[in-house]
């Protein structure tokens, strides 16, 4: 075998050995941390869904009662929507929509909208957003209680025509200097409520 060939072979061998060692290191860490990571994700999901079910009594594991509304749909956003259903003694009591408002000031706003059987909003929470810190982040419940104004609202109170910001002739408070952000959130919640009214039975009956 020529010198050149030998050198290529040994280089390949060294690479293979080091790759095998590195891969086993990652595999080992993965198997050690796997259970904890799954548990953390479950806890995080539960913890982020719970606030949107304020005042609702339920006894099921939300992560197990989830359905996907695939495209095309009339909900806000351009991706499939996850709906978590809260059950109490196997009777559906509320639905949680994970929708996306695309018309925020800087990027999509991911919203969690909880609606009970009667079409009344239990609570809404912003899961993820990229609005300007200090200006548009009032929609985050940890920054201000603005998002709480939607609690106990439905399409009949206020009526559909007034489901908008005060400056647009509606009922909801806007934040000065951030009306684009406020408007996007209000619109997304309204569209979710309209969708819920039209599809209530299919959402609650599907198993």
């Amino acid at each position, binding site marked *: 075998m020529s010198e050149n060939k030998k050198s290529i072979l040994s*280089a390949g061998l*060294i*690479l293979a050995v*080091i*790759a095998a060692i*590195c*891969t086993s*290191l*990652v595999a080992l*860490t*993965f198997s050690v*941390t796997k259970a*904890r*990571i799954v548990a*953390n*994700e479950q806890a*995080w999901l539960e913890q982020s869904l719970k606030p949107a079910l304020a005042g609702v009594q339920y006894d099921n594991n939300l992560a197990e009662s989830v359905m996907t509304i695939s495209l095309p749909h009339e909900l806000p956003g351009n991706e499939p929507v996850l709906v978590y259903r809260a059950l109490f003694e196997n009777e559906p009591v509320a639905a949680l929509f994970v929708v996306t408002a695309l018309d925020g000031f800087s990027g999509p706003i991911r919203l969690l909208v909880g609606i009970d059987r009667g079409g009344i909003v239990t609570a809404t929470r912003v899961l993820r957003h990229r609005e*300007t*810190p*200090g*200006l548009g982040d009032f929609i985050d419940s940890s920054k201000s209680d603005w998002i709480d104004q939607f609690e106990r609202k439905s399409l009949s109170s206020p009526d559909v025509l007034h489901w908008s910001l005060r400056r647009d002739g509606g009922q909801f408070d806007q934040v000065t200097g951030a009306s684009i952000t406020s408007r996007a959130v209000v619109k997304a919640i309204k569209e979710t409520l309209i969708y819920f009214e039209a599809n209530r039975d299919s959402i609650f009956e599907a198993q």
Partner: protein
Amino acid sequence: MSTGNSIRKALWDENPGLVQLLGLCPLLAVTSTFVNGLGLGIATIVVLTCSNMLVSATRRWLRAEIRIPIYVLIIASLVTCIELLFKAYFPALDRSLGIFIPLIVTNCAIVARAETFASKNRVIPSVIDGIGMGAGFALLLCAIGAFRELLGHGTILSRLDMLFGGDPIGGLVILDNPFLLAILPPGAFFSLALAVAAKKVIDRRRQRAAGFRLSI
């Protein structure tokens, strides 16, 4: 080179962030609070120390033509392990740092140390170099994080619970009307510029104190 000397060099004279200006992408992006800076700083120290150790330990097999793929393999596996460990033990911090944990792979300070130091030195000096350079980077992350958090959020040491567990900590509120720009991207550039300038001023003062005069 003595240990003290090389640590001093890593922390101050050749600080990877302040002097070599390496790893600016994570440095500018995550330093909006102190705890983010500290979290990424610790992750960087661990990766840099381990990668220096492994590169140095395998240096006799590191042939010139395959050294870069080997650095990439070692650094990428270490970062994946760190990411998994963060997800398992500091989930809140992992969510807050987001993509910047996996992106430690692309922190050029790490490859730079592997290439210029660890591949030419014994294991123990390489480990010391890794700790020193990592700490130099981490200290800068913490300093800029604390500075921006104080100005932009008006708090000190908020959300330390993400690293140490327990109930959410609001931190000490110092300013009631925070200066928003500090936590926006331009604030990161201004803060880094101020830090680099401050280091130059301190160095120059020291030189003068030592009786050193620039000949004109």
